């Protein structure tokens, strides 16, 4: 069980190995890795800076992890979210869920990403040829999170 908010990159293979080490009840791990895209809104993006609210970020991520564990039988969960300046191709976020069976792993991984996008206090500032701009929240993200409300 872990939530990490960090500037440094992470190694997906190392994290996956650490998550499952010695836990032979796990039958499957779902991993989602979010990356910085080189285009947004039809414009090239040269860099993205992630601002966050230290303290609240960890608290919110821990709360959504607890909610996922309440809903699915999970053997382990890992959420890593980076902050600071990132470039296209860089990893932003890792969500990994481990369970005896794949349905719980897949579903909870998606749930965590959907909730993280609408609850974790991060804000993206994109650098484009026309200057810097704050990324606006998408209604589709709210809709994705709302699917899990019941």
């Amino acid at each position, binding site marked *: 069980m872990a939530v990490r908010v960090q500037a440094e990159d992470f190694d997906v293979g190392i994290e996956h190995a650490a998550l499952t080490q010695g836990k032979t009840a796990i039958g499957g791990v779902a991993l989602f890795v*979010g990356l910085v895209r080189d285009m947004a809104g039809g414009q090239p993006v040269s860099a993205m800076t*992630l*601002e*966050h*609210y230290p*303290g*609240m970020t960890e*608290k*919110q991520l821990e709360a959504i992890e607890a909610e996922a564990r309440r809903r699915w039988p999970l053997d382990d969960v890992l959420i890593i*979210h980076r902050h600071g300046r990132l470039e296209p191709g860089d990893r*932003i*976020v890792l969500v990994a869920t481990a369970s005896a069976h794949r349905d719980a792993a897949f579903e909870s991984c998606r749930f965590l*990403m959907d909730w*993280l*996008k*609408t*609850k*974790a*206090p*991060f*804000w*993206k*500032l994109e650098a484009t040829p026309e200057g810097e701009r*704050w*990324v*606006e*929240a998408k209604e589709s*993200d709210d809709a994705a999170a709302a699917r899990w409300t019941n």
Partner: protein
Amino acid sequence: MKILYFAWLRTKIGVATETVEPPAEVATVGALVEWLKARSPQHADALANSKVVKVAVNQEHVPYDHPLSPGDEVALFPPVTGG
């Protein structure tokens, strides 16, 4: 009361944090946002559209009718865009 601003609210207002002492009748988050607008033209501009000003009190998301207590940490920010 400590107020924190994030993302474009921070850049528009020009500070990341400030300490304020609102009068007792400012009893809810919504009333605080209205009261903060009067602090400067920058505050008024940044806080003009309440649809895009979200609030957390003591690091929990709250609606505008949430009551305030002395010593609360209040954060104002645009809708989040992580992930």
